[in-house]
C-alpha cells in the first residue's frame, strides 16, 4: 500500500510518515526525529523521502506575500505551486522564469532541486531567478539568505535537496510575457548530428528548445527525432483572450495500470507526428502554454500507468563535445528494449549553476523512463552510470532512486563542501544512500 507521501516514480514504495505544516511560524516538530521538507512529491526517486523520520509537507503553506507587478518580483510561501503562480501572475503579464515539465511543483521543491527548463540555454536554472528566501533550521534559527547575506547557505540550499533546512518563503523574479500562447516550430531530424546543428542554430533565435528522440531506432535511424523550438507569442491574435487561463478539465488515471500500456500510447503519438504531418519536415503552430509546457499534466496521476512496481526515470548529461557518449547510451538502451519509446534530449547552455549540488552544467542532457523490471533494470542503469561517470557527466538526483555513493561523488565534486551546510536533523533516503549510510 503506497502511503500518502510517495515519490512520483512510485519506486521505492515505502511507508512514509509525515505532517502538514500550516504556518511558517509553527516551527519544526520538537520530538528529535529526522526531518525532510516535502513539496508535491514530483521527484521521481527517493530524494523527497525520509523513512527514518518524518516529512514536512508544505502544500498548505501556500500564501502569496507580495507582488511587485511593475518589476515582476513575487514573494510567497514555499508551498505555493508554479500552477498557482501562473494563475495569479499570467493575467498580469508574468510567467515563471524557468519551469520544469510539470506545473505541479512547489516553489521550495523548485529551489531545492534547482530545476531547469527548455530555456536553460538562455536563462539558466530556477536558482538564477531567486533573490532571497528564509531558511528555518532545526536550531529554531530563521536565516534570510541571498547573494549578499549568508551567501554560502544560499548556494548550498539552491539545489540542496531539502537538506539544509526548511525554506519557509522565497522571493523570485518572474519573466514578462505578452500572452498565454507559444509560437512553436517542430522539425524532424534524422540523427544526432542534425540535432546538434538545429540546437546551435536555434539557441539565439528561440527561448525554448528541446527534442524527442526515438529510443528504439537502431543503425541508420539511430538518433532520429523531432526538434521543438518556441518563443512566447508577442502578437496575440485576439487581445481579449490573450491571457486565456488553462482549462481546469483533466483526465485522471484512477488506478494503477498493468505495465506496457504507456509505450503503445507514445509510440502511436510519435509515429503520427514523425510520419504524418512531419513528412513536410517542418511545421508551425500556436499553442497554449499549458499544452506546450505541461502536456503530461493533462492526465492526473499519469505515473500510475507504469503499473504497480513503479518506474525509474534516468536523466543524465555529458559535456557538449561528447555526443559519442549519448550515441553509446542510445545504443545500450535500444539494445535492451527496456526504456520508454521516447527520450527527451536537450542541449544545456553555458551559464554556470549557482547551487553547490545543482545538476545542470554545460552539456547535452538525455532523459527517459524505465518501467521497473527488477534486477535487469537496475543492471542496465548501472551500465549507464558507468558510461556517464567515464564521460565526466552527471545524473539528476531529482530523478534518481539507485545511484551508488561512488557515482554520486563523481557527479557532484562539491558534495564535501555542501555537507558542511546540512542541518544535523535533516536527512533523506537519497542522502543516506549516497553517503553510504543506508542499510
Amino acid at each position, binding site marked *: 500500500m503506497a502511503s*500518502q507521501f510517495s515519490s512520483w516514480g512510485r519506486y521505492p514504495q515505502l511507508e512514509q510518515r509525515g*505532517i*502538514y505544516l*500550516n*504556518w*511558517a*511560524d509553527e516551527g519544526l516538530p520538537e520530538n528529535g526525529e529526522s526531518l525532510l521538507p516535502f513539496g508535491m512529491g514530483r521527484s521521481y526517486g527517493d530524494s523527497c523521502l525520509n523513512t527514518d523520520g518524518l516529512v514536512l509537507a508544505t502544500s*498548505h503553506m501556500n*500564501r*502569496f*506575500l*507580495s*507582488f511587485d507587478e511593475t518589476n515582476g518580483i513575487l514573494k*510567497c510561501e514555499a508551498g505555493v505551486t508554479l500552477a498557482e503562480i501562473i494563475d*495569479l501572475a499570467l493575467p498580469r503579464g508574468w510567467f515563471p522564469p524557468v519551469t520544469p515539465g510539470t506545473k505541479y511543483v512547489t516553489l521550495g521543491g523548485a529551489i531545492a532541486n534547482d530545476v531547469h527548463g527548455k530555456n536553460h540555454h538562455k536563462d539558466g536554472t530556477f536558482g538564477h531567478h531567486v533573490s532571497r528566501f528564509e531558511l528555518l533550521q532545526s536550531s529554531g534559527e530563521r536565516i534570510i539568505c541571498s547573494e549578499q547575506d549568508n551567501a554560502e547557505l544560499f548556494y548550498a540550499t539552491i539545489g540542496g535537496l531539502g537538506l539544509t533546512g526548511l525554506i519557509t518563503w522565497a522571493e523570485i523574479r518572474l519573466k514578462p510575457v505578452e500572452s498565454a500562447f507559444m509560437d512553436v516550430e517542430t522539425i524532424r531530424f534524422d540523427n544526432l548530428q542534425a540535432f546538434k546543428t538545429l540546437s546551435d542554430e536555434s539557441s539565439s533565435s528561440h527561448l525554448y528548445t528541446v527534442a524527442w528522440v526515438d529510443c528504439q531506432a537502431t543503425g541508420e535511424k539511430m538518433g532520429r527525432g523531432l526538434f521543438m523550438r518556441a518563443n512566447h507569442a508577442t502578437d496575440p491574435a485576439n487581445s481579449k483572450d490573450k491571457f486565456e487561463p488553462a482549462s481546469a478539465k483533466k483526465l485522471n488515471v484512477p488506478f494503477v495500470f498493468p505495465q506496457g500500456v504507456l509505450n503503445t500510447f507514445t509510440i502511436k503519438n510519435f509515429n503520427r507526428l514523425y510520419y504524418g504531418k512531419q513528412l513536410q519536415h517542418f511545421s508551425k503552430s500556436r499553442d497554449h502554454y499549458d499544452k506546450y509546457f505541461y502536456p503530461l499534466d493533462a492526465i492526473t496521476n499519469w505515473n500510475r500507468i507504469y503499473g504497480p512496481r513503479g518506474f525509474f526515470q534516468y536523466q543524465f548529461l555529458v559535456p557538449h563535445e561528447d555526443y559519442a557518449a549519448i550515441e553509446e547510451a542510445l545504443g545500450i538502451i535500444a539494445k535492451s528494449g527496456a526504456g520508454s519509446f521516447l527520450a527527451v534530449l536537450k542541449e544545456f547552455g553555458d551559464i554556470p549553476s549557482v547551487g553547490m549540488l545543482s545538476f545542470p552544467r554545460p552539456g547535452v542532457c538525455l532523459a527517459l523512463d524505465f518501467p521497473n523490471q527488477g534486477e535487469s533494470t537496475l543492471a542496465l542503469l548501472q551500465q549507464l552510470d558507468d558510461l556517464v561517470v567515464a564521460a565526466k557527466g552527471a545524473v539528476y538526483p531529482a530523478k534518481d532512486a539507485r545511484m551508488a555513493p561512488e557515482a554520486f561523488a563523481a557527479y557532484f565534486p562539491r558534495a564535501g563542501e555542501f555537507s558542511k551546510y546540512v542541518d544535523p536533523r535533516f536527512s533523506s533516503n537519497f542522502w543516506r544512500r549516497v553517503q553510504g549510510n543506508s542499510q
Partner: protein
Amino acid sequence: MKTIVIIGATSALAQSIAKIHAAEQHRLLLVGRNEPRLDLIAQDLSVRGAKQCEVYCLDLADTDKHGPLWEHVYQKFPKPDIVYIAHGVLPDQQVCQGSYQQTLASLQVNALSVISLLTELANRMETDKHGQIVVISSVAGDRGRKSNYVYGTAKATISTFLQGLRNRLYDSNVSVTTVKPGFIDTPMTADFEKGALWATPDQVASDIVKGVGKNRNVIYTPPIWFFIMAIIKAIPELLFKRLSL
C-alpha cells in the same frame, strides 16, 4: 464590489473562501485571535486581488468583546454584504465525557459565541434590510453519535438557531445560509485517517461561495452529504442506538 466580513478567518476553510472572494476583487475584513496570522492572510488576499483587506483581533469565546467587534465592523464597513462565521474547535469527546467544564468550554466556542455574534448582527442587518449571513455548522449536528455528540450538540444548536433566524429575517430581505460540510482535510482533523469521503477546503469553499451566490438556505458540501445524512437520519433510533458510527 462587495464588502465581506469573515469571522474565524484563520480557519483553513475560511482562508479558502476568502481566496475566492479576493480574486473577485471584493473588500474583506478578517476577524480572528492570532494577529500575525491574520496579517499574513491579509497579505495573501491583497496579492490575489482583494480591493482592501483589514484585520481585527479578539478571542471569539469572550462574548463581552462582541459589542466592540460589531462597532468596529460597522464603522469600517457600514453595510456589509456578506458575513461568514467559521471559527470552531473539535473537542475531545472522551475528555468532555469526563468533564462538564470541558464540555462547557467547547459549547462556549462552538455554540454560545456564535449565538452572541448573531444576536447583534441580526439586529443590525434587520435594520439595514440588507445582508447575507453564512454560518459554518456541520453534518455532525444532524444526528447525535457517541463518537462526537458534544461537538454535534453545538452544531445542532446553531443549525436550529439559524433556522429560526432565517424565518425571522425573511421579511427584512436578509438571507441566512447554514453550511453543513462533511469531512474536510484541515488542521482541525489533522490526526484523522483520510479516506475517499474527505474533501479539500478549496473544494468545500467553492461549493459554499456558489451556494451563497444563489442565496441557498442550507448547503451540504460536498453534495453527497445530503444523501448520506438523509440515510443516517432515516435510521430508526431503535437500531441507531446499537450502531458504532
